[in-house]
């Protein structure tokens, strides 16, 4: 068990180191001169050299990565090229926004997916199941960017009930924060709801076909208790994985939704940084996301053991 966790941690660390190295190599990938593009045609050779040093272009990628990691361990992720703000400050501002958005979207997705999947799987082939499956299918076919557009158009422009863009931090004005949260969270959540529903339904169908469900029914357990207490937990693993990986990826932000709704989260930062070749910020985002995914994977792994005691048993 501990051995297993230690091995997982080592593997996770290796992943992070490799991703960091790859991220450090990014400036080397660029065509033309990053320095010229940023500094303009009047830049002096000294300015260019200083710039190259700042983004690690003067070194090979390995050495740059090493320096980056060494600095990162001291809590220094460098400064943004765009505004000179320390990247850590920038991330500190953005991560909470992105996490709030992620949490809200997952709530939306789960609030839809759980009841729908449970009802669908309980009576497979019934009218509700067929309707829900068909809807999920159609829903799944609507990309987030189309959905977001429509939501803005309908809710913000036509009905004017919700703001189209922008963000108010929760600490400033909770009510306004919620108003700004609704549309982006719906866009993300509704798209995921379809995926969640399908995943959970498929797994529930599997579970409900198991003898132990029949056995519990044979002991008089009613449908609600059967579904919630007996079937949901063994069916939860794929969903937990989805949410877990989603959480890790969420640290990188949803570029699309955040751009569309001008949410000042990590995704918006990523888009701006990429557009502006703000390499220190890009690198930090990539690495932070990788760390997030790796950590989420570990957490999911541990959660698995709580959900399904057999797994813990196998690895003991």
């Amino acid at each position, binding site marked *: 068990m501990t051995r*297993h966790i230690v091995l997982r941690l080592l593997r996770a660390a290796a992943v992070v180191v490799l991703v960091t190295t790859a991220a450090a190599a990014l400036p080397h990938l660029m065509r033309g001169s990053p320095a010229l593009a940023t500094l303009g045609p009047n830049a002096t050779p000294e300015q260019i050299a200083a710039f190259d040093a700042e983004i690690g272009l003067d070194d090979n990628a390995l050495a740059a990565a090493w320096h980056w990691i060494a600095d990162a361990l001291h809590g220094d992720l460098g400064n943004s090229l765009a505004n000179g703000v320390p990247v850590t400050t920038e991330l500190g501002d953005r991560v909470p926004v992105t996490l709030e958005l992620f949490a809200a979207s997952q709530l939306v997705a789960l609030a839809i997916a759980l009841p729908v999947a449970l009802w669908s799987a309980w009576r497979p082939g019934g009218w509700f199941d067929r309707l829900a499956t068909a809807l999920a299918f159609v829903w799944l076919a609507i990309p987030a960017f189309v959905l977001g557009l429509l939501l803005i158009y309908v809710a913000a422009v036509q009905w004017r009930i919700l703001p189209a863009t922008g963000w108010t931090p929760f600490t400033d004005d909770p009510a306004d924060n919620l108003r700004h949260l609704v549309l982006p969270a719906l866009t993300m959540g509704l798209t995921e709801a379809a995926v969640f529903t399908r995943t959970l339904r498929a797994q529930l169908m599997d579970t409900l076909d198991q003898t132990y469900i029949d056995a519990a029914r044979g002991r008089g357990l009613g449908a609600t208790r059967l579904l919630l207490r007996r079937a949901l937990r063994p069916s939860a693993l794929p969903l937990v994985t989805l949410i877990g990986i989603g959480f890790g990826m969420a640290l990188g932000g949803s570029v699309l939704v955040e751009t569309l709704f001008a949410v000042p989260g990590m995704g918006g930062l990523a888009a701006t940084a990429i557009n502006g070749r703000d390499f220190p910020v890009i690198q930090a985002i990539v690495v932070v996301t990788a760390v997030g995914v790796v950590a989420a994977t570990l957490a999911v792994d541990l959660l698995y053991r709580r959900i399904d005691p057999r797994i813990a048993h196998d*690895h*003991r």
Partner: protein
Amino acid sequence: MTAVLQASDLSVVHRTRSGPLYAVSDVSLTLHRSRTLALVGESGSGKSSIAKAILHLPAPTRGTVTVDGVDLAGLTPRALRAFRPRVQMVFQDPLSSLNPRRRVRDIVAEALDAHPGTARTVDREARVRELLDAVGLSPDTFADRLPAQLSGGQAQRVAIARALAAEPHVLIADEAVSALDVSAQATVLNLLRRLTETLGLAGLFISHDLGVVRAVSDDVAVLYLGRVCEQGPTEDLLAAPAHPYTAALLAAVPEPGRALGDGHLLAVDPPSPLNPPSGCRFRTRCPYASAVCAEREPAMRVVAERRAVACHHPLPPFAAPATDDPTGHRPDHSIQHED
């Protein structure tokens, strides 16, 4: 009697997360032409592991397997592939052992197609018909069917035909009938029996069902936690088991018109193979276990003609000489357990 296959001191160790699992320990078997040896034991006793070790799929952790005098371990991968047809196996689950996407004809002909250019491939179609006939399936009806269109007994017969197509010298059947209904089981058992006799195959028949074993095998080896605990000709062994475990197995077999025997076990379940008991592995369930059983592992001992047993306290009439038990303790075989 000619020995076709000789397995010596086979040991199989599975690596698990909880440490090495000794599935098979020092098992030696000899298979003879036209004779069938049955391997009997509880679930998890290592029956399938022995079969796989013999087939070198993969090779055993220790021990050697020689077929027709050739040591399989000494063969190059290519030579091993060419040699493989000599030993064939039929699996427990008839349906999952047939590729659901291929027709019966192609499944049976696989051995012919896999080694093109050898003598076997003379006339594919004729050979397929011949094989299907041999297992009692009408070629016209069955050659073009897919596995999903076969019943369990038919599928098992197709699997046997596929094995026969390789012209094996040894045929292993791993629980080949335990998934079948009695009527289909009888058909397959008859078929196996007939084939070993008419084709002169050496058979290894793996089963947990003593009734079935009696119907097909000439000899029996009883396996307990990866070790052979008793061996002998089927009829003799079933008539007078020497090992308490064999006796318990036999006593537990329910049969119409037969009162259940009084053989009983101390513990219901076998111990974990990850952590087998010291000395005699059976002692935790053995009603006759004594101090010596915990200390020393009983060696395989010949107790009668072609009968061997590994027990410190074999049942009468095979009771061990007193020297075998340094404590001088005689287990009381007459104790009756009230269950």
